[in-house]
């Protein structure tokens, strides 16, 4: 090394001295992230009973609910609008609307009404953000309060029960040993990834998220694109709500509690950039798998709900720190 340097000994000293300074930060932090995930997976798989059938089935359903919301959240994140805090409440309220509609005119009607309701509810927020240019975080917090307020006012008893036998047996079972929820989740991820990768709308979404002004300047219809992102986010979120309602034959606003937070954690762990313009449904899928695995592990280790929040919080914190330090200069 030294003899290659033409400018003499002092430069060589300088070079040796400087070598310590040249740790590539981005690389170090991305290594740290990978190691963190590997350690986490090791702890998860080492948990007694994790690889047993009941806990795997529980994992596959848990991940599906979180995952569908995370896919919706990913679309919002990619569109450059960071996060929505109203998706958990949307899960709850969609479950209620779905059961009411099913009780009235049957499962098929309930399904259509539930999906439409959830999509429009979130799409309306998208309209506020895309067209009125309101702050996305404020809009989602306002929507959260509105949804809780209205449901409290109208559903006094809290829980709505489905009429017995209203759901066909086929939607409550398994296909080839795999819970139907998980199949829906995989399908959702595929559909979302198709939208992102292969449609004009998906491409517009990345452009708007990457640079709103540049997208405007090349003629992308920005408000329609953002509204579209929220419509789809609502669609995937309401799917989670409907699946929950089918599973428990009931709906309650509490069903949605913490789903938005788990979804945010899943999006971040998956590595979707919080600033927008970058990300994928596949990443949301992977992130949801990690978060759900942690939750199942904590349950198996006998830790209560509170510890799950704590764990999710710590994971998000770690990811945020790693992402910020890794990409920042």
């Amino acid at each position, binding site marked *: 090394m030294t003899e290659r*340097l*033409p*400018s*003499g000994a*002092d*430069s*060589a000293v*300088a*070079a040796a*001295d*400087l070598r310590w*300074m*040249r740790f590539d930060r981005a690389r170090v932090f991305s290594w740290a992230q990978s190691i963190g995930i590997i350690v986490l997976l090791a702890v998860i798989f080492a948990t007694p009973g994790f690889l047993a059938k009941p806990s795997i089935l529980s994992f596959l359903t848990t991940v599906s609910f979180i995952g569908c919301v995370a896919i919706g959240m990913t679309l919002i994140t990619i569109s450059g609008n960071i996060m929505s805090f109203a998706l958990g409440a949307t899960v709850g309220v969609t479950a209620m609307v779905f059961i009411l509609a099913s009780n009235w005119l049957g499962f098929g009607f309930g399904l259509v009404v539930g999906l439409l309701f959830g999509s429009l509810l979130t799409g309306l927020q998208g309209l506020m953000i895309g067209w009125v240019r309101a702050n996305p975080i404020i809009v989602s917090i306002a929507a959260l309060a509105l949804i809780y307020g209205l449901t409290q006012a109208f559903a006094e008893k809290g829980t709505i029960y489905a009429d017995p036998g209203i759901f066909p047996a086929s939607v409550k079972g398994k296909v080839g040993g795999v819970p139907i929820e998980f199949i829906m989740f995989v399908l959702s991820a595929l559909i979302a990834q198709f939208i992102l990768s*292969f*449609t*004009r*709308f*998906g*491409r*517009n979404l*990345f*452009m708007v*998220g*990457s*640079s709103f*002004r*540049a*997208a*405007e*300047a*090349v*003629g*992308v*219809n920005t408000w329609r694109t953002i509204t579209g992102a929220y419509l789809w986010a609502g669609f995937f979120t309401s799917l989670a709500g409907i699946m929950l309602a089918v599973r428990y034959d009931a709906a309650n606003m509490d069903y949605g509690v913490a789903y938005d937070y788990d979804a945010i954690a899943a999006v971040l762990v998956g590595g979707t*950039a919080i*600033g*927008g*313009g*970058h990300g994928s449904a596949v990443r949301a899928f992977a992130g949801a798998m990690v978060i759900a695995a942690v939750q199942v592990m904590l349950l198996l280790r006998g830790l209560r709900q509170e510890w799950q929040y704590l764990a999710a919080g710590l994971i998000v914190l770690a990811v945020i720190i790693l992402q910020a330090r890794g990409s920042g200069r």
Partner: protein
Amino acid sequence: MAGPGLGRSDASGGQFLQSVLSVHGVSKTYPGVIALRDVSFSLAPGEIRALCGENGAGKSTFVKILMGIIQPDSGSIAINGQIQFVREPQQAQALGLGLVAQELSLAPHLSILDNIWLGSTEVPFLHRRASFRMRAQQALATLGLADWHLDRPVNSLSIGQRQLIEIARLLAREARVLILDEPTATLSDADIERILGILKGLRAQGRSIIYITHRLGEVFELCDSVTVLRNGQHVATQPVSEVTREHLVEQMLGRSFKDMYPQAATRADQGIRMAVDGLHVPGVLQDFSLIAPRGRIVGIAGQIGSGANMVTRSLAGLVPSATGSVTIDGRPMRLGSVPRCVARNVLFVSDDRAAEGLFPQMTVLDNLVATRLDASSQMGVLSWPALRRLGVSLAERVGVDRHRLQSPSTTLSGGNQQKLLFGRALASKEAGVLLMNEPTRGIDVGARAEIYRIMRELCDRGAALIMTSSDLEEVVGIADIVITLYRGRVVARYEGDGIAMSSILADITHPTQAIA
């Protein structure tokens, strides 16, 4: 201690004054790229040194090494004869180096005083001390700005005035070597004059300046000597008096300087592409009219604040308050919506490449095809092979390496990024209207010539081009028709041989006559 950098004198080393800054054999390699190779450099007190080179020549790497933002792989830096290992910008500051970066780094809502001391390591926790106030006032006075009030918020200042605050910030920290990275790129002519005058004053006080610019006029007006870098290597350092403009461009390009501007329009006039009548933007632009023939470049000249850039922005559909009648090929077009304008093939290249042009997280390919998604999709579903083919052909036509198509767009140099934006305009099948603000701002000579070539290619296909530029040399060199603006009103219109630098300059600074 005699630094080794002084042992081997470089081309400017005739002076016997001790160098205030001496760089010896600095190299820096990034994965796959040699950014700097064995560059030596020394700067005397009271010297203004121009640092020239194409984008990617290594200028910014050099500056970052001086400021301790990155560390060199080898080589040494001596400041006032002492070898220093500059590990971080704060240390560089303490050693008397100061940088005014290309992008302003002021906090707009804070006062001038706060901005001057922002980020200084000298300032204790409670900083409102009289001594800091006094030193800030002195710094302003050095710049001839003693009458400015320190408590004025920075957002009440013009861009040119803000640039002066950046310089005052360095002076307040007692910088002996000021590094200015294209300080005039965003300024109007009047502001440029003022800055150049102030810099000459600083030289008289014995401060040294490293002046990075793409504008050769400023090199000859302001600087004592010029260092040229090319492909990370030192090409030459010479007194300005011993070099000609052509020679300097040749050193930067590494090849002989052929005519920078392509031939004027050759194609016969084929009628009017775009006609604008009574364009009005409240408070900015009044009763502007324009006729843009096919195959011609219309240049709109005006200082910052003249409304010139609002003409193009309005016609691109980016200004909701713009009114006026616009026809394209005889058919009317409504203003105020970009998608509507894009549908009529009216495309826009912004002067703010970073914020309004590029999609930073996206690849070169995705950036190139951004305006042509419709043509490569069916029922809203994109065809990746079609997009790829389009991207490859566009990359070839604008002269961007096709192997970079999958790289993030931010890894390209400024000149290549600008070529991407022009590639979008080439992508459309039919020739339309291309609106450009400052088409060559902040890009090097080589890329500049490429951009002019692309502009002429668009003309040959029958497009009408409308551009604004604060670089008058460029307006005279490339435009077929020139319209001058002063404070939102048209002053005059010139065509062909009638286009002359002197009358344009006179129009945009002190209009004598106004024709509607």
